[in-house]
């Protein structure tokens, strides 16, 4: 009967309740949306690269280098000469190196020139290797005696293949620059898809991988590039990391910057924390205002419900029952708004996931209900109880002092 009274009372004021629930829905959308995207962005960023000891690029800020080299966000301020890359990558203690040359694209997807070492050594997530379906391109690193020759083979990231619908053997041309539409197309050298990578949930999925030789041939130079955008280094011993970093940062031939991915990520989070805090604060205030709306609505309707409360009291309902009835109404409204908000957020994320990953390189899951977001839901319900205490306590006092003929 308690539930019938709660739901019946709400249904009797359905228009007011609908608008109130709508405000909770929007607030939930904002609170969980901000928090979920924040957590997903962190998760997405931290799993993008694994096992890389140093990232080397032209001298710039370490966050900028991290963003353009690993996350394909933004552009390099300068390139590194091929000579410097070769010099550093052949130093003792370096287990492997992956050069990266960025700057071309195909229908909005970045084209990255690299070596076949990329498929052997690059790791993501929890030290997971790339899974290649088909063949990698052939380059001077494919075998000890391989000559540097362009093969115009391309390995597609999972999303590129899925979105563009390119199967193995499909031919396409790449364009100069990073726009979705380009007027400078390298159409004299079409590329053939030889391999497709398994999904990784990282920017790798949105990248087209070709050999440095093929990239260089596009620009009618070669056989090897004069410069690369950046390179990743894996060391034989991590103890060498700081020494090598210092050496690279003091490299006399050209100004270079070597960064530790983890340290750069920490700096990025530190930089982001003020914005995150501001966003969290705003979303929190939006939620508080919606919940205050519930309390105000319940408070303002108490006068109209005096007869209803008097009938319940005459039938033996204790003031505590009236108190709990008001609290239950507030909780039902909040819970309904929350569930609707979660559903709307999941639907919204499902619909915009591709756009977010393409535009920002962040892979956001539509699975909103995670351990990180549950405390927020609990806090919203707790805050509802706290704020609904205002009308509930008033109803309690009114019903305690109520007379039969009130």
């Amino acid at each position, binding site marked *: 009967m308690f539930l019938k009274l709660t739901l019946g009372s709400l249904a009797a004021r359905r228009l007011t309740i609908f608008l109130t629930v709508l405000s909770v829905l929007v607030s939930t959308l904002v609170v969980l949306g901000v928090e979920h995207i924040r957590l997903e962005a962190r998760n997405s960023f931290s799993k993008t690269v694994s096992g890389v000891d140093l990232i080397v690029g032209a001298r710039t800020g370490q966050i900028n280098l991290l963003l353009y080299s690993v996350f394909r966000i933004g552009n390099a301020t300068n390139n590194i000469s091929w000579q410097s890359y070769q010099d550093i990558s052949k130093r003792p203690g370096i287990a492997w190196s992956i050069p990266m040359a960025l700057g071309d694209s195909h229908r909005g997807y970045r084209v990255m020139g690299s070596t076949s070492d990329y498929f052997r050594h690059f790791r993501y997530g929890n030290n997971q290797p790339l899974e290649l379906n088909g063949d990698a391109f052939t380059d001077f690193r494919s075998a000890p005696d391989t000559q540097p020759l362009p093969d115009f083979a391309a390995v597609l990231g999972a999303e590129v293949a899925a979105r563009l619908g390119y199967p193995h053997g499909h031919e396409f041309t790449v364009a100069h620059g990073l726009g979705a539409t380009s007027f400078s197309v390298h159409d004299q050298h079409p590329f053939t898809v030889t391999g497709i990578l398994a999904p990784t949930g990282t920017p790798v999925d949105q990248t087209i991988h070709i050999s440095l030789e093929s990239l260089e041939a596009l620009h009618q130079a070669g056989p090897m590039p004069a410069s690369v955008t950046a390179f990743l280094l894996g060391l034989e011993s991590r103890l060498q990391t700081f020494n090598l970093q210092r050496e690279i940062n003091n490299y006399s031939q050209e100004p270079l910057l070597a960064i530790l991915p983890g340290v750069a990520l920490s700096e990025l989070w530190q930089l982001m924390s003020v914005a995150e805090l501001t966003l969290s604060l705003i979303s929190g205030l939006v939620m508080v205002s919606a919940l205050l709306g519930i309390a105000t609505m319940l408070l303002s309707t108490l006068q109209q419900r005096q007869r209803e409360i008097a009938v319940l009291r005459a039938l033996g309902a204790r003031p505590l029952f009236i108190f709990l009835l008001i609290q239950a109404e507030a909780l039902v409204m909040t819970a309904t708004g929350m569930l609707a908000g979660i559903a709307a957020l999941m639907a919204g994320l499902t619909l915009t996931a591709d756009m977010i990953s393409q535009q920002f390189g962040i892979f956001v899951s539509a699975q909103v209900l995670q351990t990180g977001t549950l405390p927020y839901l609990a806090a919203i319900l707790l805050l509802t109880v706290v704020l609904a205490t205002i009308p509930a306590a008033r109803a309690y006092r009114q019903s305690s002092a109520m007379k*039969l003929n009130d």
Partner: protein
Amino acid sequence: MTSSSSTHAISIRDLHFAWRTGDADLLQISQWQIRAGERVFLHGPSGSGKSTLLNLICGIATPDKGSVTIAGTELGGLSGSQRDRFRARSIGVIFQQFNLIPYLSVLDNVRLAATFTGLPGGTDQRAAGLIEQLGLNSARHTKACHLSVGQQQRVAIARALLNSPPLIIADEPTSALDAAARDAFISTLLDCSAQAGSTVLVVSHDHSLATHFDNTVDLRALNRVLVSRGRVTDDVP
């Protein structure tokens, strides 16, 4: 809790009451008793304390001095929640109008009376029986807000009788009814109460109802405050 007299549905002794501490007494009743099964009509002018007396009998208010004993239970000896529970189990209340929860069905409005008794279920069958007895079967699933005033008052009777309480109190129950509906309502109330063995106390300023009852009481004769102030003007001729 003391048993003053099991043969009395209501027993009041040396009652003094004011709504606010320090105010002059609104009610002073030396002694008043209603026998179990009796049907009593209580009348008095506006402001004579009729509704205040009902609040005291229902345990909504407690006397400043003296005692109110209902069906052998002295209400002053009970805590607030015990009085609420006692009211749910032992007293059926009917108002003049707005008796029902408008968004609940007829059946749920009747069943509501059992919600606060703290007793195990089993009242559904009795609720259905009372609804049928009062000619409301076709409207049992209709929301109370869609009923006529007459139908609402019959639902109120069914609800008041659900727990077979020893005492039924009605406060101006016919004020919203026309003459024909008024007589039908009183007859139904008294018939059903007789079947349940309940004592009935109806409070009204409508003297024409007096003929339906075993006993008629003028509050002016009971309330010593009115006697001492000399307020003898009735609100109806």
